[in-house]
């Protein structure tokens, strides 16, 4: 995080109100994202990891300005984003997104060329110029325009469709691209090709990435910084090297433990987590992870842990890190 932050987020929160179960019954809410703060350094990649339902995708949509946060601020180049229609249109030029489902994210009725051209044309680029942009980008992501430009999404493989989605995201010349599980659905060999393409593109086009995935190996390969989320909250945040070398939060350690590794030295001793995460509707009080944490103590059930530092730029929200928290293993995680 030594680089100048291009995107700074502070205290971002979003809750969804569910439909009332009946007359007079107060509607329940889902705390999808609560109090998330992060910095994306210029030219860096920030990986966001967590199990499904932990608020990763909501965070992505908040960062895109696709949904309005309940609280918190998002600053691009130090300037708070303008939420007027014009301001959002301007903002969206700079931040683009690639979705998980390569086929649902392409209009089946448009040729891939037309899909890539759509963004520039929305921003006033004339059709011939937009077509030139599309062809150049298709070529750049490894799809020969001569062969592919006139095809429809169903005629392409998943990997090829995801390349189209990348080209589409790049068509507006963004500075930040968010990948929401963008390679998760691909075969391993295709995944590696696409990841390498992403690294090349980042260097060539001076991009910054936010890379959301449940696959810790992929995140480690591509990220400079990593943010670990659990039930809508940040549990650990820091440089990738530091987090993978010294995972501190019990949840992070459990996640890494469940990650298959061929290297015997890297086999962690922490017990893997069992069961499914609790429902984000009415999450557990105190530390949200306490229901599945092997080290949970009295204090974890009642009080929310504060964020404490455990190394350079490395932050953890766990009572064990805070000597005064009252946790029996406090100060010796």
């Amino acid at each position: 995080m030594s680089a100048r932050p291009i995107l700074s987020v502070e205290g971002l929160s979003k809750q969804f109100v569910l439909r009332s179960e009946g007359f007079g019954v107060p509607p329940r809410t889902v705390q999808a994202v609560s109090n998330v703060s992060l910095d994306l350094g210029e030219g860096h990649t920030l990986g966001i990891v967590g199990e499904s339902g932990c608020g990763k995708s909501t965070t992505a949509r908040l960062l895109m300005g696709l949904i309005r946060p309940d609280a918190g601020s998002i600053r691009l180049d130090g300037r708070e984003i303008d939420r007027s229609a014009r301001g959002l249109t301007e903002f969206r030029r700079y931040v683009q997104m690639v979705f998980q489902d390569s086929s649902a994210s392409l209009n089946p009725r448009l040729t891939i060329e037309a899909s890539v051209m759509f963004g520039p044309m929305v921003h006033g680029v004339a059709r011939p110029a937009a077509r030139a942009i599309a062809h150049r980008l298709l070529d750049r992501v490894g799809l020969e325009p001569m062969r592919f430009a006139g095809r429809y999404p169903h005629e392409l493989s998943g990997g090829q469709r995801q390349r189209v989605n990348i080209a589409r995201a790049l068509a507006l010349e963004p500075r930040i691209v968010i990948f929401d599980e963008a390679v998760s659905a691909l075969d391993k060999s295709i995944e590696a090709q696409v990841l390498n393409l992403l690294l090349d593109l980042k260097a060539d086009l001076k991009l910054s990435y936010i890379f959301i995935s449940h696959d810790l190996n992929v995140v480690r390969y591509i990220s400079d910084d990593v943010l670990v989320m659990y039930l809508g909250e940040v549990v650990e945040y820091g440089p990738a090297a530091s987090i993978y070398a010294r995972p501190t939060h019990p949840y992070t350690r459990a996640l890494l433990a469940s990650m298959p590794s061929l290297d015997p030295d890297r086999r962690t001793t922490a017990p893997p987590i069992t069961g499914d995460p609790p429902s984000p509707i009415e999450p557990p009080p105190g530390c949200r992870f306490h229901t599945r944490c092997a080290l949970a103590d009295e204090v974890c059930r009642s009080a929310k842990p504060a964020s404490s530092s455990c190394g350079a730029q490395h932050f953890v929200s766990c009572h064990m890190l805070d000597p005064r928290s009252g946790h029996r293993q406090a100060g010796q995680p």
Partner: protein
Amino acid sequence: MTLAFDPPVARASLGYWAGVSRRLRRDTVSMVCLVVLLLIIAAAICAPLIAPYDPSVGSVVRRLRPVGTPGHLLGTDDLGRDMLTRLLYGARLSLIMGIVPVCIALVIGGSLGMLAGFVGGRVNTVVMRTADVFFAFPSVLLAIAIAGILGAGVVNSIVALTIVLIPPLVRVSESATAQVSALDFVEAARASGARDTTILRVHVLSNILGPVLVYTTSLFSVAVILASGLSFIGLGAKPPTPEWGLMLNNLRNAIYSQPLVAALPGVLIFVVSLSFNLLADGLRSAMDVR
């Protein structure tokens, strides 16, 4: 086991609609229906050129001649008017009264449904609950009730049918729009800064057109039967205007003397309605392949 090779040269892919039209053209039943419908429409337009007689002039001495009478190929009606002529002219009003309400309802119901499905929330609730109320009435009853209260006449019949046809079109277009709007490419389009109207035009419309079109085609069948039905009970066209439903009613007493002649106008209503229904089936299966 098939081996697929990418052709080495640039090729333009077959678009969705080109594919649909190619599959439809290979379907004999659909093509026959389409030709039949086009012939009937052409005959209706050219009625003054091809009809052998004046549709409103009859002769008392030539009443109720059978099919095959020289000079009156399809016989004559109860007032001695040439049946072929009246059937040709009758196609005009019968088709207009059936097709126009569907077209108006498609524009109004289709846009309302798109709006409700795309915007969601309160707009959706208001539009869909209103449609539900109309659904509480069986369509025939509602059409007859409205036409009956407004009074007999071609325009009133068209108004009544339009009102009846709007709610089902709202429902079909709303559910198709809601399904499409939930897909990522709509979100991606929004993320690229496109306005809602642009998204609706480029991304939503192209994807809901198929199911809405199939449904509309089958509605033509319903509307043609209903329109002639209104005339049949005296709520639509008025004598001496030639209209199939009205002609059928006028010839009700002729079933004892000239059953074949009496049944003729109904045969045409049946053929038109059946053709639209079969065409809708053909369209549906031509679109089913992704």
